[in-house]
């Protein structure tokens, strides 16, 4: 498990222990990765983050067109693996969770502990405002540093 911000680690670790999720990705609504578990390659995590953020944006727009409130979660049931995609509000803005799980657990368990993860993230998020995203002069260096933090190399 790797996280860019230390206060995310304990809630995510508890979620992983309880839910038995195979892969977990936490990201901002724009697809910027905050933490990941189970991904082996940076390309995979970046692709999953971009796709996940895109799916959430699409479903939220669908909900808006239908005059419905935002969808809470999207669950894709597969034969061997399933996937939960959910957006939630945090003091740091709107985040998205992508969880891939297998038959060793169930969607009920994953949803139950995902809700607890959201609550714990909300409770433990630092109250000071996070710096606004911007393209810094040393953007490439910062991107490399983030990837090293997420993948440990």
């Amino acid at each position, binding site marked *: 498990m790797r996280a860019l911000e230390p206060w995310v680690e304990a809630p995510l670790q508890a979620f992983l222990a309880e839910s038995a999720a195979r892969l977990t990705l936490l990201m901002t609504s724009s697809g910027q990765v905050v933490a990941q578990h189970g991904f082996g390659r940076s390309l995979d995590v970046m692709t999953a983050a971009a796709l996940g953020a895109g799916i959430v944006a699409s479903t939220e727009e669908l909900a808006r067109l239908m005059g419905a409130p935002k969808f809470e979660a999207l669950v894709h049931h597969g034969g061997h693996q399933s996937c939960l995609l959910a957006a939630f509000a945090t003091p740091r803005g709107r985040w998205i969770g992508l969880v891939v799980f297998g038959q060793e*657990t*169930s*969607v*009920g368990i994953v949803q139950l502990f995902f809700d607890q993860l959201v609550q714990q993230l909300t409770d433990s998020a630092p109250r000071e405002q996070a710096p606004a995203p911007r393209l810094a002069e040393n953007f490439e260096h910062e991107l490399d540093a983030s990837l090293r933090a997420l993948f440990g190399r």
Partner: protein
Amino acid sequence: MSAAQVALDRVTRVPGVRGALIASSTDGLVVAEQLMDGVDGRAAAALTGSLVARLARTTAGAGLRAPVFLHLRGEGGSILAAPGTDGLVLVAVAGPEANVGLARLEMLNAAGRLG
């Protein structure tokens, strides 16, 4: 009244039972519920469904048949579960004063008609 509602009615009529629900053991989701305020049906369905599914795998691994009734007793009460057909589980949340014997009879009877 549906078969699920009939089953839940019979179980929740037992003195001391705080609520009952029908859950899917494969996905841990609530199918139907009749619960008193303060009982988290979603958590009960997810955790009991998972427990029943794991116990079934454990007994199968040991060459035994799947359990027909589960009684999880705690200080503040009990969780009772009776697996039915089609992966459904009848779950009851009972207080410490509940007539567990009667609840068990009603649940076994009702679980056989689920699905």
